[in-house]
Every structure is written in structure tokens, then in C-alpha cells.
């Protein structure tokens, strides 16, 4: 994304509860667009916690990257790639697409 001229701030939200509200609100104020990414359903995890916080403080366009409320499968992680990540759109390129989509809004 840097090559495309998009500067992003990446924050590691290792504590979901209690959420670092200050960091999220500051990020929303200073960037204007938020993407969350987690190896979890988009329901009930980091994405939802952030969506809720933003709605209650600083409504901001948002995109949640994660498992889109569906059951998973079993697949192999090989040298060629991670089939599950690709299928569920959790790759870095999917993340970049999410950022671009969010910025358009």
C-alpha cells in the first residue's frame, strides 16, 4: 500500500477487553477510516468491539476483515500457500483491498 501512496497506521490490539479506547479513538480522529483484522468471526470479536466504540464516540467508516459468519473447513498450509487464509480472504492483499474500499467511503 505504501507503494500505492496509501499511508496506514498499524496497531496491534492484543487486549480486546478492556479495549484501548484512547488508541482507537485517536486513530479514528487522525485517519478517518478504520479497518479491523482478526482470525475470528467479524461478529463478536475485535471488529465488533471497535464498531461499537466508534459508534458511541466518533462514527467512522469501517471495514471488518475476518471470518464472515460462516463455518470453516479443514485445509493444508503448504509452501505454496495457506489455502484457508486465501479462501476466507484473510491474506495481506485482502487487507489492502479492505483499506482501499474503506477509503472510498
Amino acid at each position: 500500500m505504501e507503494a500505492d501512496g496509501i499511508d496506514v497506521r498499524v496497531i496491534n490490539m492484543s487486549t480486546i477487553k478492556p479495549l484501548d479506547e484512547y488508541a482507537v479513538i485517536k486513530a479514528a480522529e487522525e485517519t478517518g477510516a478504520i479497518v479491523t483484522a482478526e482470525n475470528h468471526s467479524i461478529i463478536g470479536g475485535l471488529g465488533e468491539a471497535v464498531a461499537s466504540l466508534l459508534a458511541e464516540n466518533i462514527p467512522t467508516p469501517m471495514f471488518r476483515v475476518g471470518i464472515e459468519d460462516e463455518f470453516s473447513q479443514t485445509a493444508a498450509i503448504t509452501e505454496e500457500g495457506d489455502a484457508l487464509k486465501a479462501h476466507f480472504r484473510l491474506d495481506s492483499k485482502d487487507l489492502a483491498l479492505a483499506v482501499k474500499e474503506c477509503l472510498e467511503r
Partner: protein
Amino acid sequence: MKDYKGSREAVTMALLELAEQDPRFMLVSADSLKAMRATEFAERFPDRYIEVGIAEQNAMAVSAGLASCGLIPYVASYCGFLTMRACEQLRTFVAYPHLNVRIVGINGGLYGGEREGVTHQFFEDLGIVSSIPGITVVTPADESQVYKAVKATATLDGPVYIRCGSGREPVVFDRNEPFVFGKLHMVKEYGRDAAIFASGFLMKRAIAAAEQLNGEGVHVTLCDVHTLKPLDEEGTAAILSRCGAAVTVEDHNIIGGLGSGITDAAASLCPVPVEKIGLRDVFPSSGEAEALVDYYGMSVEDIKTAVRKVVARKQ
């Protein structure tokens, strides 16, 4: 059964009528027959009533088995025990294979804990069922809406969760009021200062708040979100866009239920200020139903204050 009173009897009435028409409908009880006021079902349809005793995980697995044979079981018990104690059975044996089990969860919310106290008050159930893929979730506002919800979802594909109460919840709607599955139910349209998305047995308070606000110069649109999942996203986005601010009202934790559903939708579709009314992520205590709900931040005044706050936050 000639008539029903309260959400539990409403389920039983609907189930009796369904069972009369179609031999696939069954009742699975975890020593919850009396709680469901469903003795008549057991008497009239003994071969369609299964009693597992106080064993909710077994009840859920038995229901999965029945559904896998083409039957349509209603497993009815306290919503916390069905969703928490039998969570994994619900997820792996009902939801994953997408079976036609209807989970009737009674005693939803703080109202529900009046007689039996903190262990029988449930405010996490919607969060649990909403996080499991493929479960339809309905939260009807009163007894006649519950009755209609059971009928409306009887032959839906896949698992359905129906949130019911203690039987003492207020009657809000006329018995003629329709229940249109999957669509927002418009209750009052005083104006566009803000939207109130309410569901379940606090509807009477939401209606009172909207009416009082109207008299005080704040004009809201009040919607009943009786279908939590799948959420009517189009309808929700339209209301959010039209009003520019929203308050959610539910007898559930502000995490995981209607409030979360609406903020998720707002974040994706139409970011606007939202305030949530519900249990503020604390364990409540036992007590008289209306007093409890007032004490834990779900009074009519709390709703009105939230509306004023969110209106002030509009740009």
C-alpha cells in the same frame, strides 16, 4: 388450551396448533414442561414429547437427532442453559449441519430473573447465538408477537432461536399487529431527530420514552427489531441515514445483542452516533423485575437521556 397469557404459553399455543396440522412438530423438554405450560402438549401428543430431565446438552443433541430424521423439534428451556450449558451441542450438532431445530429460550433478560434470581437471569444469550453462523434469531416484543414469531419461523430452513420471557412481560401490541419476519417493524414515526431501535420486552418503555420525548420537542422514529439475525440491513441503513443518530434498547448486555448488531450495521453501512441502552456489562442482582430494569440503566428516563445525548452528537 383456549387462550394464552405470557410468552411461554404463547409458544405452547402456537406449537399445539402446528402439531395439529403437521406430524413433524415435536417438543423436547429438559424438565421444562411445566415452565412452558406445555402439559397439554404432552397429553395430546405423547409420542411427540421427549423428556430428558435436567440435561440440556442431551436435549440439544436429541433435538439434533430428531431434526436429522426430518422432524421439527422445539427444544424449550431457560435460555441461559440452552445457549451456555448446551452451547457446543448447539454449535457443532445443530448449527454446523444446519438442522431444523427451534430453540425456545425462556427467561430472557433481567425481567426473567425475578422469581429465580441471578442464576436464572440471562443477558448473554443473544451474543452467543449471534456469533454462531447460520442461526436465525428472533426477539418478539410481547406474547402475541411471540405467538406469531413461532408460526412465522416454523418451517424456516435451519436452526431458529426464539427469545422468550418469564411470562410476566407487558402486553404491548394489539393481537392484530402483524409479525413480518426479517423486516424492521415500524412502531412510531414522530420525526427524524433520532431513531430508537428497540426489541423484546422493554418495548413498552421505548414506546413511553418516544411519546414523552415527542411532547418535549424531540421527535423520534421507533422501530421494533424483532428479527435480530438476519438483520434487515436495508431497512436499518435507511433509518440510520434518515435520522442521523440512533439509540438501541434491549434487556440484554450492551455487548453482543441488538446494540452490537446495530453498531456493526452502522459501521459498515452508515456511520452515525449510536447510544446503547441495556445491561452495561455487569452482573445484575436479584429483585423485582421493573425495579431491577430501572436500577440497571434501562428506565424510560435513561432511554430519553440517551436520545438527547445522541441528538446532541449529530453534526
